[in-house]
């Protein structure tokens, strides 16, 4: 999977070349060229903002088809806790997990359970003297990628503890192999996901050499199948393992509540996250131990691959949490996994104008000159999200000043005036 850098892709025939996605992208990763949106690969962090905003459904996320589970002899499902909030008729978690198993999985392991174990590890991690504070949660892959791209000075703040998805995958593989004698390579592990970025996280992990997840299936894509099984087999039940401490991770603030500390900031929504990261970088946030940052508004319940809109999902989630849930975390059993990242997180340079500082400074001086001459409307009609981005594209040789329709109009007016004056002279 070398070269794979993001899951978001364009369905070109649906794209009308409007400015919605370029304006909302938090990393300025989209341009409209030749009437179609184009993603700048190394800038895309899979936040899904473009999927949400596109009026023509031209932005999609790569995920794995449900049928790919049959490529494996043994199939394991790892449901994200956000799955529990997708059914407006309230089913218990036991019913939802039982239906999931009936879809064709041999084993189901709740990611919410792994989240509890990660919480226990994080509590210990936060006691360490050798860590840089505030610690930023590594659970949201979009946030980790935003830091790597735009806030590299905060890479050392990222928690070195695994994400619940990775922990769940490792535990489930070990448990299933131990129980059945299956060889690890015969087991396919599938994350049932609210999130486009988790697909990329499984293909090209950050902080890990290799992912334990073999496939990522969108909640949306199995929703109808699951709904049918739920209504057909209401009496089916499944022994749940996670308490409210793990399940609540799906909601913004849930991870922090599980840590049982008051000394945290929980921020959700990618643009809000960027503001908080900026403030940490400028030393404006002190005396805080932990930052829970989730890219989607409302947390994972607001994920682009969820079925319910985030506010309905929150209402359902509240009822699910009241229904059948253990109020205290279950103790550790013999769940075996390595809780630590095993690879460095590296800075991705996607914005520099030139490797050579002298050349970069000259290019930026030129860019500032161009910006001063552009109208400053940030209209996006040129295909770049704002005037500054157009100036940058011009410097890179990817656009020209005549792409600006306001400038073009000025030229046209001048020309018209000139022609008018010439005609007047002829009379």
């Amino acid at each position: 999977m070398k070269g794979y850098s993001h899951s978001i892709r364009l369905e070109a025939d649906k794209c009308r070349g409007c400015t919605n996605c370029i304006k909302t992208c938090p990393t300025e990763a989209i341009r409209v060229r030749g009437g179609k949106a184009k993603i700048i690969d190394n800038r895309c962090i899979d936040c899904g903002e473009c999927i949400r905003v596109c009026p023509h459904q031209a932005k999609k996320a790569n995920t794995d088809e449900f049928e790919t589970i049959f490529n494996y002899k043994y199939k394991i499902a790892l449901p994200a806790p956000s799955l529990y909030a997708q059914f407006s008729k309230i089913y218990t978690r036991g019913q939802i997990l039982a239906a999931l198993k009936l879809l064709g999985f041999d084993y189901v392991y709740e990611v919410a359970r792994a989240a509890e174990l990660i919480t226990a590890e994080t509590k210990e991690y936060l006691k360490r003297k050798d860590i840089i504070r505030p610690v930023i949660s590594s659970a949201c892959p979009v946030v980790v990628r935003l830091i790597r791209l735009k806030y590299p000075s905060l890479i050392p703040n990222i928690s070195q503890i695994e994400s619940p998805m990775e922990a769940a995958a490792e535990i489930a593989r070990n448990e299933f192999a131990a129980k059945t004698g299956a060889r690890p390579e015969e087991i396919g592990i599938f994350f049932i996901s609210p999130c486009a970025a988790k697909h990329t996280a499984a293909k090209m992990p950050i902080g890990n050499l290799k992912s334990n997840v073999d496939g990522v299936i969108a909640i949306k894509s199995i929703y109808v199948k699951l709904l049918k099984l739920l209504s057909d087999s209401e009496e089916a039940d499944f022994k749940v393992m996670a308490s409210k401490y793990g399940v609540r991770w799906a909601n913004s603030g849930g991870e922090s509540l599980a840590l049982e500390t008051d000394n945290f900031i929980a921020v959700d929504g990618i643009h809000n996250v960027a503001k908080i990261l900026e403030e940490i970088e400028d030393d404006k946030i002190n005396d805080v131990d932990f930052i829970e940052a989730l890219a989607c508004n409302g947390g994972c319940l607001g994920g682009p691959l969820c079925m319910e809109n985030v506010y309905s999902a929150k209402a359902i989630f509240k009822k699910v949490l009241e229904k059948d849930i253990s109020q205290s975390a279950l103790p550790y059993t013999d769940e075996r996994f390595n809780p630590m990242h095993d690879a460095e997180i590296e800075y991705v340079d996607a914005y520099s104008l030139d490797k050579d500082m002298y050349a970069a400074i000259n290019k930026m001086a030129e860019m500032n000159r161009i910006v001063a001459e552009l109208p400053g409307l940030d209209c996006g009609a040129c295909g770049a999200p704002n005037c500054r981005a157009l100036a940058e594209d011009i410097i890179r040789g990817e656009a020209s000043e005549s792409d600006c329709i306001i400038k073009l109009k000025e030229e046209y007016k001048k020309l018209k005036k000139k022609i008018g004056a010439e005609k007047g002279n002829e009379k």
Partner: protein
Amino acid sequence: MSDNIIRLHYDIDADDFSSAGLASSGTKRMLNQLGFNPAIVKKVAISMYEAEINAVIHADGGCADVEITPEKIVVVISDKGPGIPDIEQAMQAGWSTATNEIREQGFGAGMGLPNMKRYTDDMKIETELGVGTKVTLIINVN
């Protein structure tokens, strides 16, 4: 044209805490894109922010002029405020003339000038009572 220097000029508006910091954040964004070491960017961003906030709190705003070269970054914050009567006193950590109102907003802790000194390689204050203050912050790249 290619003289290896970027000159920036920002006006600093008075008495608007919510927009205070625009000059330093704009400068920071450019330094990041230029590829300066994050430690250098941080020194500029923090010291310039402190100076910018000071101009807002004490002097009804002013302006910022920045020169970026591969060797050093020079920030000059000028205001037409009351001036600083005793620079030595003002440099002491915790010493402040800020009103309670400003302190309640989380500003005016008396760390502005000490922080500027801490985060710069060279700092110069020129001040005249009733005329204004000019703070020059120099951050060396190497």
